[in-house]
């Protein structure tokens, strides 16, 4: 049941008995406490219960039970929903904001790199573009060629990236779950970035003078 379970941030989890956990927490650390114990100071009571998980019968409303228990002294009560909300607001939301920031920066950097590549490839083909214009190719054909190039680059890169992650995810220090909907969204983002990045090349291509094909 505990196999492969990780924390919200992807770190591994070790399951142990309460006694072992208390021993780790109170006997082995912190060092100041151990020094105090060595001096003969009275040890802190360790046979504490940290949390109790209660499973309710299906017909019992959890909010009502929690309300009753909150009236008891020195206890805090969290329902499943409240726990989820707490975790979402503290751990997941903060982590996703940080990851979102990195992803945003990486997306912008990728877009700039793709834009430069598409622009360079377009400038390399100025003569061919001029020839196509000269023999009567409409703008939509020229634009189509550049978009095709950018999209091929995006699809190929996505395929390589997704394949590498799929085969090497077990080697990474953090656990990675590849959810189909996330992969589809990422593919959409890649396509959008490629289309956006190709605008620089498209603009350059549309400005090409067909007369350049005649220059020897």
């Amino acid at each position: 049941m505990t196999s492969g379970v990780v924390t919200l941030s992807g770190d591994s989890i070790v399951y142990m008995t309460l006694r072992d956990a208390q021993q780790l927490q109170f006997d082995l650390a912190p060092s100041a406490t151990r020094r105090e114990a060595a001096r003969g100071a009275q040890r802190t009571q360790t046979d504490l219960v940290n949390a109790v998980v209660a499973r309710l019968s299906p017909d019992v409303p959890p909010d009502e039970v929690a309300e009753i228990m909150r009236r008891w002294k020195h206890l805090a009560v969290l329902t499943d929903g409240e726990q989820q909300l707490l975790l979402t607001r503290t751990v997941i939301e903060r982590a996703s904001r940080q990851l979102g920031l990195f992803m945003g920066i990486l997306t912008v950097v990728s877009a700039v790199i793709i834009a430069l590549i598409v622009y360079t490839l377009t400038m390399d083909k100025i003569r061919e573009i001029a020839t196509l214009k000269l023999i009567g190719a409409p703008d939509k054909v020229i634009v189509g060629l550049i978009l095709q190039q950018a999209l091929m680059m995006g699809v190929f890169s996505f395929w390589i990236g997704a394949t590498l992650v799929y085969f090497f995810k077990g080697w990474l220090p953090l656990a990675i779950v590849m959810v189909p909907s996330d992969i589809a969204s990422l593919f959409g983002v890649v396509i959008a970035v490629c289309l956006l990045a190709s605008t620089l090349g498209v603009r350059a291509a549309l400005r090409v003078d067909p007369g350049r094909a005649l220059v020897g």
Partner: protein
Amino acid sequence: MAANTPSQPLVEVKGLSKHFGEGESRVDALRKVTISVGAGEVVGLLGPSGSGKSTLLNAIGSIIEPNEGWMRLDGEVVYDNRWLRRDLRRMRLEKIGFIFQTHNLLPFLDATDNVAVVFHLAGVAREEAVERSEQLLDYLQVGHRKHAMPSQLSGGEAQRVAIARALANRPRIILADEPTAALDSTRAGIVMDLLRKLAVEQRAAVIAVTHDDKIFNRFDRIFHLRDGRLDDEGDQL
């Protein structure tokens, strides 16, 4: 497309002028140039560098816009002090075939596809485009190289593929910019014979800019340009 009557020239240019820049930097590339070329004619445009040959070719090819004048191509008035057609590229596709000094074949397509690209642009289905391209390559005696990439073709073969591309849409006007410059005299003669054959068989007008004195005798008429002006009405050869 307007119909062309037998008596009407395929290319008619009257009082065509073109200048670049304004004020002190103004350069008059063409000054009131008037020429006409009929079906089946092969004419040459000669002149020193900067005389306006290429500008005239570009203007007839609707690549640059003249400043004033009048121009009729294949029976349709396309310029009368302004372009009368908005879709100039479509007009080029329908009426004009271009042959370049360097063949300008698309390096990422084989010989067949370099020709077929014109059929695609004209809306011909892929299968038919390939079939017609191969027929054209056979006609120009380069069919045995139909699957070769441009880098694998010799200069003469590449130029013949380029001519096949120029002919793909059966244009009535063929504009050639130094078509033999990159060829030796034997191959230059072959290309000029080919242009002559096309002009006669397809009733097309061929206008070629050239410096190549070994092909001067292949033209029906030669127009001499100097400082943007025509020296004469076209020497009859």
